[in-house]
């Protein structure tokens, strides 16, 4: 484990990725402590789309609200949604994939068919349908939940492939002969092999969760109870920031989304490199 971490720390991709991600986490959690501006306070003096000033580092939005505080809140919401979606999707995916892949037989067939079904039916469609059906009470948590519940399929699929290849290994048979029950075998002899893999799946799910939230917010089906990076972009677009070329209204938000997702990609790719020695070199 420690050796693995050491190997990871040797990869510049991983170091950069984890640094950006931890920084964004820190900003999201502790940002308000250092930069305490009410996101709902409208600065009437500065007015809408005020340029950068000592008072508003990145200016104000169309309502005269401070952009830095909006960005911090947005980042926090995006990470929150991403984590919820990631946790739910990974849990469901790992559970279904592990169960099917390890058990085999008809249960596996049925689960696999269900998984394939959800792979080909576009997640975006289901998201739009549910979000537009839930008119009231579309909270950030609910959106995270919905994203998680609709995006587990490909993680189930990849975990299943790994688990079923493990099933034929002799150490599983040997564990059986040691008298280990199915649960113990799963926890002690299957999960450790999948752990790094599950972690990678989780990271990809978090990043796709962040992107899904941004997409759904972009079309006006975002959370109603909080601001998010997608909502910032949506409002900037709807209120003429694009056509009036007010770069400061959307450039920072796009950068924050891209950097966060990029950091997660970096972590994932570098881990793949370490765990799959063929890709190393």
């Amino acid at each position: 484990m420690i050796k693995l971490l050491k190997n990871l720390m040797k990869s510049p991709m991983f170091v950069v990725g984890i640094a950006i991600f931890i920084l964004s986490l820190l900003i999201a959690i502790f940002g308000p402590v250092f930069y305490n501006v009410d996101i709902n306070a409208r600065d009437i003096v500065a007015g809408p789309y005020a340029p950068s000033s000592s008072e508003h580092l990145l200016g104000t939005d169309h309502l005269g609200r401070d952009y830095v505080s909006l960005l911090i809140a947005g980042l926090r919401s995006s990470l929150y949604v991403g984590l919820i979606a990631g946790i739910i999707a990974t849990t469901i995916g790992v559970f279904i994939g592990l169960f099917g892949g390890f058990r085999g037989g008809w249960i596996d067939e049925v689960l696999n068919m269900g998984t394939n079904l959800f792979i080909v039916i576009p997640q975006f469609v289901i998201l739009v349908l549910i979000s537009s059906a839930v008119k009231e009470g579309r909270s950030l948590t609910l959106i995270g939940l919905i994203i998680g519940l609709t995006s587990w399929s490909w993680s189930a699929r990849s975990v299943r492939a790994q688990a079923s290849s493990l099933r034929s290994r002799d150490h599983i048979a040997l564990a059986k002969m040691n008298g280990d029950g199915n649960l113990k075998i799963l926890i002690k002899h299957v999960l450790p092999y999948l752990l790094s893999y599950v972690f990678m799946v989780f990271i990809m799910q978090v990043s796709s969760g962040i992107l899904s939230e941004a997409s759904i917010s972009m079309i006006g089906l975002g959370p109603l109870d909080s601001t998010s990076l997608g909502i910032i972009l949506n409002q900037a677009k709807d209120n003429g920031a694009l056509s009036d070329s007010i770069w400061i209204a959307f450039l920072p938000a796009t950068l924050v989304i891209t950097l966060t997702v990029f950091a997660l990609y970096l972590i994932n790719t570098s881990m793949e490199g370490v765990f799959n020695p063929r890709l190393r070199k």
Partner: protein
Amino acid sequence: MLKQYPTLRYVLQKGFWYFLTFIVAIAINFALPRLGENNPVDIVMGKAAQGLSPEEAMQKKETLLKAFGMAELDDQGKVIYDTIPEVDANGKAVLDENSKQKMVPQPRLSSGISQFFVYVKNVFHGDFGLSYSQYPKPVIEIIKESLPWTLLIQAPTIILGWIFGNLLGAFAAYKRGIFDKVFFPVAMFLNGIPYFVFGMLLVALFSVTLGWFPAMNAYGMDVIPGFNWAFFKSVGYFYVLPFFSCFPILLSGQATGMRSMAIYELGTDYMKYAKWLGLREGKIISYVFRNAMLPQLTGLAQSLGAMVGGALITEMIFSYPGLGMAMLTAIQQNDYATIQGCTLMISTCVLLANFLVDILIAVFDPRVKAGLQMGGK
């Protein structure tokens, strides 16, 4: 019977599977809006009943219920009414002037299953109901108008992005060195950008700041849509930005995937053996490409949904008159029938595209032809 034609058997099996998935997609489309308390008729009635007399409102509701296949009909095809106690918004019984429970006639709703069958029947007849926001325009008309634009923007982006992405990825894997060191991080960075974000940046830069390309719509106001040169030129001009807001990202996604697949292929025993036999470099690259292409095709089938979803949002950025835009308008106006029509159409297209990819897999994987293995999935 089909043993002699393994490819045909494979295609038929896949076709059957996609048909089942299509039915499930219809079911999802049918069930999700009904999950909440509200049924689609009530959603529409919420606005439609404004300014109508109670009789007119009831008349309208009856029409809508019939259209949605939600009312239980008698032999003459008339809606059956039940007399039930009226309740107010809080679920409390409404009392009449005699302090007795007020009874009102209410259309009897048919069972969920029979509603579903009517829905399926309608769908297969191309009947997606009436748009509310553009009442009484049928949803199918809206779809007919916007689908070609969506296909125009998505099909070339996905196909070209896939082809060039794979070529680039294989090249990077084989050459390694400087090219790979520059190309790979750039591709990965691009891969992480959502389409709409990239689209917004392109609009701001090339359209608003530099003024090179238009930011909105699919063709200029000054041309008449039709089969004429001016129109095509205009469409091409307006096509540039939407295309390039998806294409590079799609390309990088495919390229990074292909790169790692190709690196894996290069390390296999048979590629080593090919080198030992002194095969030419070009030949080995072509094998690597061909072998890595199969999993990439499967990957394409898997990520089609996500690609299409992303590109739909791009349409919204550019107000491109495709399904995405139609859906956005419908969402803003609570036009549920149109939303449903659009989502079902999108699912159908993705399923069809997936089916095509599976046929391609059958063509490219000789083992399917030999009746040995069931290709990708």
